[in-house]
């Protein structure tokens, strides 16, 4: 797997109300096979940054290198998973969705179906290969999306709040599953979330961003052994530290602020 270098990346949105800075001079180095979470309040540009890395947006300044190669548009070295369940193609079965990237690569039918089967087994959906997305639950659809992004074997996996629209129990299952998938595949992962406990559960390193314009505020390494116990003292300490960086008060008995905007 490959490292990612992000150097002085800035982006300005041209809106009807004038120019709005999206992200400003973001620099990050991400190691090969590292799992990095980017957290920040909504509107801080974390999704924008991910979209720049994915190649959907072109930065106004700075550059991104993946495995030493400069990013220019989207490419098959990156797999992308979005938050919206509707990202799957409704006219394709789970298997057909997962095989899509391989089909684009020109992999023969038997071969791509074999690989798609394998990927669906990895996300524990081998019983649902022939199902259309509208017959699958939200959690299952997101698992298909993960399998689809992994199927053509990109070295980097980019995930934009993939579990944010799921209920809490399903989300916990998904996080466990993703941790397992990552252990097996060892992809370099950039994962955007606003969920602090999710970040502590998944990441080797958490990047905290400030809003307007989005810049890197600080980063926290999470050296906890895996699988992590979300109820352990260390886990909760990391959560508290992250919340503090995000501007939430976490003192005993004090109610948390409604949002992090005041301090952030």
């Amino acid at each position, binding site marked *: 797997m490959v490292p990612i270098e992000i150097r002085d990346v800035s982006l300005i949105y041209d809106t009807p109300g004038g120019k709005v800075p999206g992200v400003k001079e973001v620099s990050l180095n991400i190691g090969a096979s590292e799992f990095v979470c980017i957290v920040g309040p909504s509107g801080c540009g974390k999704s924008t940054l991910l979209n720049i890395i*994915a190649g959907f947006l072109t930065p106004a300044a700075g550059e991104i290198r993946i495995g030493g190669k400069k990013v220019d548009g989207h*490419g098959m070295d990156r*797999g992308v998973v*979005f938050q*919206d369940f*509707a990202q799957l193609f409704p*006219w394709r079965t789970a298997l057909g969705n997962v095989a*899509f990237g391989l089909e684009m690569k020109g992999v023969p039918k038997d071969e791509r179906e074999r690989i798609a089967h394998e990927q669906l087994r990895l996300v524990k959906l081998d019983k649902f290969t022939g199902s259309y997305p509208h*017959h699958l639950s939200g959690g299952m659809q997101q698992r298909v999306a993960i399998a689809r992004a992994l199927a053509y074997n990109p070295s980097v996996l980019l995930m934009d709040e993939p579990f944010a629209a799921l209920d809490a129990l399903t989300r916990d299952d998904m996080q466990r599953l993703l941790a397992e998938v990552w252990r097996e595949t060892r992809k370099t992962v950039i994962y955007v979330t606003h969920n602090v406990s999710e970040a502590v559960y998944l990441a080797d390193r958490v990047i905290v961003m400030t809003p307007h314009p989005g810049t890197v505020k600080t980063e926290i390494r999470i050296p906890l052994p895996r699988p992590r116990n979300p109820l352990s003292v260390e886990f909760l300490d990391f959560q508290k530290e992250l919340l503090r960086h995000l501007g939430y008060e976490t003192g005993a008995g004090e109610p948390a602020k409604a949002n992090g905007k005041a301090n952030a």
Partner: protein
Amino acid sequence: MTETKQSRRSLVRGTLAVLGAAAVYEAMARSGYFAPALLPTLPTIGRTLVAMVVDGSMLEHTAFTLYRVMFGFGLAVVVGLPLGILMGRFQRVENFFLPLVSALMPIPSFALVPLFMLWFGIGNLTTILIVFYAATFPMMFNTWSGVRSVNPLWLRAAGAMGADEHKLFWKVIIPGASPFIITGMRQAFLRSWIAVVGAEMIAASDWGLGWVIFDAKEFLNTDIMLASLIVIGLIGFAFERFVFGSLERMTVLRWGMMRTAKG
């Protein structure tokens, strides 16, 4: 409820509606308020229909009309579908065609019949072109809307997985726009029938259901008129049920992109 039970019930409901309409008509025809020559009873219409089927004339007229409809409709799909896709996908194509299309669309195809008769004479060519004119715009407009309503996430996801413009067309945009494309086909087919009957009344000689209806007026043969209308209705029903209905069941209903009405 099981599927067969449900389909049997829907069949019963549909039949009831048809029988109800027939009963209302029959009651009016037998009420004595109207001249039987103007409002023939259903058995009279039925006998005329059977006679025309048996002597082969109805089949021949129907075949002519169907040929014109299918030819014109087919042409409309071949032209309207790609044009609609290009208009929805490329701003330049949209800029180029939209004003022209917007100006041409509200012109009733029927208003073109006299002109087309002078240009192309009486017969198949004129009727087919009228059908083509009537069917192209709904095909194109629906496809255009369909392409613009394709979820951008599908395009992003497909792009990230290495789909080029050609693959996007066939593997994402066409299936993604399919609910609109099928609606476009339906509307185009409907307009085709409206256009063909109108065109045949003036611009066809000796053949076609429209011609039959118009010709029957000369001899006050209301039974022939109504028999022809029944044939048109039956063909419409068959196409809706077996062509568009099946197409929908095999695609957008199966994919959950459209749903059946609530049970």
